[in-house]
Each structure stands twice: as C-alpha cells, then as structure tokens.
C-alpha cells in the first residue's frame, strides 16, 4: 500500500510574525493522500486552511515538519520514490507545479492570464512543456473546453468576457490539460451563485472520477465536502481538531468545534 502513496504530510507547520511575536498559522498537521482520493479541509476563516494548502503546493516552505511527494520519474519510467519537497530544486518544483499538480485559485483572475484568450490559457502549460504546433494546441484547447462544458465558440475571447462560473471552468481546464495527479483547490465555488456552484461541483466530481485525480479542497462549505470528499480534516486556530471519513465526521462529529460547525449549517 505504501508504494502508491501520493502525498504524505508529517507535522507540517508554518509561522508568521504577528506584530513582533511569531505566531503559528498552522501546526502539527499530518495526513496521507493516495491516488484518486479527495480530501476536504474545512474550518472557519483564519484557521490556517489556505496556509496549509500553500505548504502542500510548495508555495511556502514548512517551518517545521515536512511534506513528501511521490515524484514521477520519467527517466526511469517507473514510479519514483517519495521525496521531501524541501529537498527539490526550484526548477523541479516549478516543473511539478506545471505538470503533475494543478492549483485552482479561489478567484479565477489569480489563476488565469487575463490578457490572453481562453484558448491560450489552456495551451499555456503545453507550450511551457515545449509544444510548438499551433494546430495541435488549438484542438487540445477545444477538446478541453468541451470537457468542462464551455462554449467552444468562445475560444478566442478574453477571460474577462466570461462569467464567473465560466472563468472557474476555464481555470480547471487550464490546470488539467497536462493530466496532473494532484489538484489543489482553494474554495473553488465561493463567489458563485448556487446553481452554478452545483454544476461546477458536478463537473469536478466527474473529472476527479474520470481522471483518477487526487485532490485537496479547501472550503468552508460543508456541503462541498459532503459531495466531493472521501475524507475530511477540520481545522481550528491552526490545528487539526478532527479528521476522518467525510460521512463519519459530518454524521457523528466528536470535537465540540466540529459539532458546532455541523449544527450551524442551515437546512431550508
């Protein structure tokens, strides 16, 4: 089982200076992710969810503990060994972020290149990997737009002219084009209206299933966790207060904070 472990986090923590005192934004987080598994991280604002996500995606360095990732070794055409992200060079990390990982930002504007068309946004990763055939790039972009249910007629339009839901879909397509194994999502559905949220969640669930994607989804919406995630992690004040199978945590919350969280969801 240990062979196909994808991501392994051991005691990871990050501290920031608050005023003149160091303050742990998140601390002592440990979990494993296997291929095809979806993990939801829930918690209130400021509980360290996004910081944790940035640690996992190597956008921030851990101040303590470590994040290990199973790096695909193309040279030996075999599954590589699990390595500490802190040991990888910047070039290697950027390569990972471009090929093996995806990062879906909360605000699509942060994850998209707003001054080039939708098609160019989808093609960017392929061009970064050395694809230099316009026709191929274009047909790839079209097929991905179809997959994320975008109107293919909008391929040459700027993302600015897209609606919020479409921008989010475009961002997902742009990330999935290199067939990553692990996708990080930072509150992908906040800021969208309810019906668009539902369709987007449906799409994400379908893609995760088809592509055998592993995903870490940060959200404060328990419904998102219920719908997408196999397992979940509840955070409060930078610490993980409870983790387990989604249905177990939501139906039988153990920690007082989780109980509060579950009971404060409105049901119409």
């Amino acid at each position: 089982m240990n062979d196909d472990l994808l991501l392994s986090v051991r005691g990871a923590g990050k501290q920031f200076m608050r005023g003149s005192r160091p303050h742990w934004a998140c601390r002592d987080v440990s979990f494993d992710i296997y291929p095809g598994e979806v993990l939801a991280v829930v918690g209130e604002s400021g509980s360290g969810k996004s910081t944790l996500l940035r640690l996992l995606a190597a956008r921030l360095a851990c101040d303590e503990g470590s994040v290990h990732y199973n790096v695909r070794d193309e040279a030996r055409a075999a599954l590589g060994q699990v390595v500490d992200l802190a040991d990888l060079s910047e070039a290697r990390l950027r390569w990972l972020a471009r090929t093996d990982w995806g990062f879906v930002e909360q605000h699509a504007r942060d994850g998209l290149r707003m001054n080039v068309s939708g098609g160019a946004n989808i093609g960017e990763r392929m061009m970064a990997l050395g694809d230099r055939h316009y026709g191929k790039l274009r047909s790839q972009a079209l097929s991905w737009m179809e997959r994320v249910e975008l109107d293919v007629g909008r391929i040459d339009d700027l993302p600015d002219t897209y609606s919020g839901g479409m921008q989010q879909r475009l961002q997902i397509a742009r990330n999935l084009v290199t067939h990553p194994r692990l996708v990080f999502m930072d509150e992908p559905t906040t800021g969208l209206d309810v019906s668009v949220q539902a369709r987007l969640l449906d799409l994400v669930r379908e893609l995760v299933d088809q592509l055998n994607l592993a995903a870490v989804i940060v959200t404060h919406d328990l419904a998102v966790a219920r719908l997408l995630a196999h397992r979940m992690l509840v955070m409060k004040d930078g610490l993980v207060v409870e983790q387990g199978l989604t249905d177990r945590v939501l139906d039988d919350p153990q920690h007082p904070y989780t109980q509060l969280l579950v009971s404060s969801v409105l049901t119409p």
Partner: protein
Amino acid sequence: MMDENYNFGFLDERTKKMIRRALLKAVAIPGYQVSFGSREMPFAYGWGTGGVQITASIIGQEDVLKVIDQGADDTTNAVNIRRFFARTTGVATTEKTTQASIIQTRHRIPEAALTEAQTLVYQVPMPEPLFRLEPRRSETITMHALAEYGLMNVKLYEDIAQLGTISKTYDYPVLVNERYLTSPSPIPKFDNPKMHMNPALQLFGAGREKRIYAIPPYTAVRSLDFEDHPFEVQRWDHACALCGSGDSFLDEMIVDDAGSRLFVCSDSDYCGERREAGHVGTQQAVQMSNALTVQGNAT
C-alpha cells in the same frame, strides 16, 4: 578634431572599464542581460544612451565609426551621435558600411554583409523580451535562469488566434545560442535572419534599463515560431524606386493625397552604392488602390 576638454570618448576611464567588464560577461554568456551602472549622458534617454556608452567604451583611435538611424546615415539621431564622437574622440567617421569598424545602429542591420573585423552596436529601448507578458522583474529573472520560455509562445499563439498570423513585425523575439530568449532591439523581423551566424560582434546597450547583452560572432540565433506557422520575413511587391533593389528592406512613403506611395531602400548607404554602380529604379511612385476612394466612387 578632438575637443581636448573631454576625456577620450566622453566617459571617464573607470566607467569605460566597468562597461568593458560587463561586455566581457555579456559575450561570455550570449543573450544574457548583464546589468551595468549606466551613466547620465549629455542627451535624453531614448536617444541611444546605451549604445553610445558601449561605443564610447570600445572605440579606439584607429576605429572608423558609422552611425545609422533606421538605416539612414543622415537623420537627426545618426548625425548627432556621429558628431558627438567626432568631437569627443576625433576618430574618422564614414557613411560606408564596408569601411566602418564600429557601426552604431538604431533599429536596422545594414544590408551589406558584415565582416569579422566589424562590431555592431545596437541602441535598445527595452532589453527584456518578456516584459509585456510578465511584469515582475524577479519572475522574469527566474524564467531566464530556468529557460522557461513557454510564455513567449503564448503571445505568438494569441497573435495567430486573433489575427490569423504572428503580427509582430519588429522586435521579434529570438533564442540566442538555443539558450537565452533575447529582444533583438526593435529591428524589423526582416533583419532577424542576418543575426544568425553573423561574423561581426553584436553588442546591445539599454541605457535607461541599465542592461548590456551580446551576440558573439558565429552564434546561432533562432526566431521563435510554431511548427505549422513558421517564421517569415516581410516581402514587398515593389522594388526600390531609386536603385531598383528587390531584396532590401523598403520604406514606404505616401507622397500625395491620392495615396501614391514611393518605395525606397531604408539603408541609405546601400541604395547610394547601388546607384553609383549604375542600378536605376523606376523613379516612380506607385499608385495603390485606396479603400476609401473606392468606397467614395461607389456611392
């Protein structure tokens, strides 16, 4: 005659030494942008301060200087820089490409083939080819370091998607020695193939941006493109009206209100040499169909 009130080449010796050191590094790493302590020059940024500082640092008493501006020897920028060096160094100046040992150029490469004995100095307004795509300087430095140049192709892709063809006609990005993405200063893309394996040393100076870079003699320079949209240079349906040359870079001048155009060589020395050798063009402006007049007649 040299004005004795100035140091040779206007700059002081330490500054010239600093610039030469930057030049050595630039030549050692073809296409890499070396930062240097650009000095205030007695004319405004945008008038070739980078190129002038390089020329001032490499010029010697035996050199023969030619200065061109958009190919022409007789425009304001070229005349003034030539006069500047005549006064501060006293070296011989020329308008003949073949006789010059240093050619300072603003946005053209001479039509006549260059030799190993010559140095071409470019005036560069913006040395960073990625600057319209990636505004963060720290990020572009990383991209150069890791040779991550996919973004430039995103720009070219966008051109083809929106306009059907790569619309960039000047400052067309090149890959020097298959490593560094480089801005060829805004020369027309017509001149890009001349940079490839050129026997002359090519030095680039950006005064305002404080960068120097170089393409050593016989270095591979490749213009970026797509496999199914290869790089192409401009072609004209007309020959030069003065010398009849069909393979030089032509300037298009509108000569009357009816839209007649006169096509002449941009390289004034090349055109003059050809006329001296007896080549003659049509001496005629070309009548081009004017979309607006056609519409006017229809109504």
